[in-house]
């Protein structure tokens, strides 16, 4: 309520064009809002003990939630890369020539359940093998190339639809030129199931943390209301509406959530910064397929909006009941 009473003494401004009555009302309304917003911040800062403790607890809860989210996002980045290598390898019979293999590739390309086809000829495979294995001299001694022609197929929706996937595999196996088909997706499916589990767990965990944030702000606002009971009662006696009385407290809730959100963002960023080096080491082992991921701009905005809204909501839930109950006597 300091919000509504605290009006600094200023010299009235010089005469200006007389605005309409509605205009004046709107101006007064905006003036009041701006004033309430900043005076509620001022009031919070004037009691630094309660304020910093509450903000610290909120910031920890928010950074936990944000940290979990970011951890999951980082892991998903990794598994996302693995999913891209979700391929079926078709080993062609030895007697099938490169030309026939190429024909088969063109044929497979027209199938609707296949999204991408890659042909690796014997010669290509041999070349790569020589380069990476380090046994190039030994291979030079071979008269015949023992490697088969291989076609790599990237199926459509292979991971989401089991039946379709198996159908595709057996269809490929029936092609006369095909020696055998290698498609072991089980481990990828397991990984995906684990990711889903992790995803769900984090949603639940973060909901609990959000609930904690609601309770913490709610309780803080309740105490603030108790401390300023006298003001509230006097304001009621001079004709303040409940909504009017609520407003500065809602702004307090906003500030708690918003400032805690900013601190949580800093915390999360510092944590990722600390983890960046070991993460980089890890990613080198994965052919540098992922980088440490920070909260991006949209996520940062979302984090701040969510924490500020939770602050307002927590305050509102308490105020809605308590202000009605406060009656002057």
């Amino acid at each position, binding site marked *: 309520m300091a919000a509504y009473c605290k*009006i600094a003494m200023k010299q009235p401004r010089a005469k200006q064009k007389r605005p309409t009555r509605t205009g004046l009302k709107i101006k007064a309304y905006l003036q009041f809002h701006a004033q309430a917003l900043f005076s509620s911040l001022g009031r919070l800062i004037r009691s630094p003990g309660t304020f910093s403790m509450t903000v610290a607890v909120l910031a920890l809860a928010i950074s936990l939630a944000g940290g979990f989210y970011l951890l999951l996002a980082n892991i998903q980045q990794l598994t996302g890369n693995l999913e891209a290598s979700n391929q079926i390898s078709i080993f062609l019979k030895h007697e099938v020539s490169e030309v026939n293999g190429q024909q088969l590739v063109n044929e497979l390309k027209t199938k609707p359940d296949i999204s991408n086809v890659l042909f690796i000829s014997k010669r290509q495979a041999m070349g790569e093998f020589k380069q990476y294995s380090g046994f190039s001299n030994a291979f030079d001694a071979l008269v015949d190339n023992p490697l088969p022609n291989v076609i790599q197929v990237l199926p459509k929706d292979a991971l989401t639809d089991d039946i379709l996937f198996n159908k595709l595999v057996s269809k490929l196996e029936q092609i006369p030129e095909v020696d055998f088909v290698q498609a072991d997706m089980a481990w990828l499916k397991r990984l995906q199931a684990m990711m889903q589990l992790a995803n769900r767990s984090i949603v639940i965990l973060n909901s609990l943390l959000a609930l904690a944030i609601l309770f913490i702000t709610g309780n803080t606002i309740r105490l603030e209301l108790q401390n300023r009971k006298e003001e509230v009662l006097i304001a009621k006696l001079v004709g303040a509406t409940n909504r009017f009385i609520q407003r500065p407290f809602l702004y307090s809730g906003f500030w708690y959530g918003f400032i805690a959100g900013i601190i949580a963002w800093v915390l999360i960023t510092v944590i990722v910064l600390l983890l960046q080096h070991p993460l980089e080491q890890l990613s080198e082992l994965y052919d540098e397929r992922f980088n440490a991921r920070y909260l991006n701009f949209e996520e940062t905005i979302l984090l701040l909006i969510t924490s500020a809204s939770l602050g307002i909501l927590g305050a509102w839930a308490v105020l809605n009941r308590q202000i009605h109950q406060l009656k002057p006597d």
Partner: protein
Amino acid sequence: MLVFDRVYKRYPDAEDALLDVSFRLHKGEMIFLTGHSGAGKSTLLKLIAVMEKCTRGQIILDGQNVNRITDKQIPFVRRKLGLIFQDYKLLQDRTVFDNVALPLVVAGNSYHEIVRRVRAVLDKVGLSGKEKKYPITLSGGEQQRVGIARAVVNKPKMILADEPTGNLDPELSTEIMNLFTQFQQVGVTILIASHDRGLIEKMHNRVLHLDHGRLLQDCNETT
């Protein structure tokens, strides 16, 4: 302006606070409400300010039945009233200016308007130049004048004062009463609860006398 029609008020697990109280108050009238402590003076004022609702009967304030209004309408009824208390009920951590400005802020007036009206009313109650002071630094009489300024700043139709001079010496009390008379002269209806017999007799106004919740006499009634 104000009509009490066979009003009863009973608190849970207690005796009747008001029994069959009927009276009528005209616009611009100044009237005293007297009686021993516990006679129901405060209850009567609370009923008008909708701090309580009566058990039976009707209270019409400015053409509005205050017993039938919703919680949402209560603030707007209170804006028609100026309330003055024995203990002043000032906010000690706010300046005189902020205290007096409260009803105007609550009603959504612009800053410019607030400054203008607060200065005018402080001038009227003889407190100009004390805007920036805190209530605690003022004397009892001055604090009550801040209370009065706050009650009248929003130009209420009616002033309700509960023992406004209860904590003041006779000289200051007379000063406060003179202020009330001035407001009455500009058409404000005033109801003052007081047991200060000497003061009441000096004022020659209409007096309502309550005894154990009943209205005993209605002296000097004007029609």
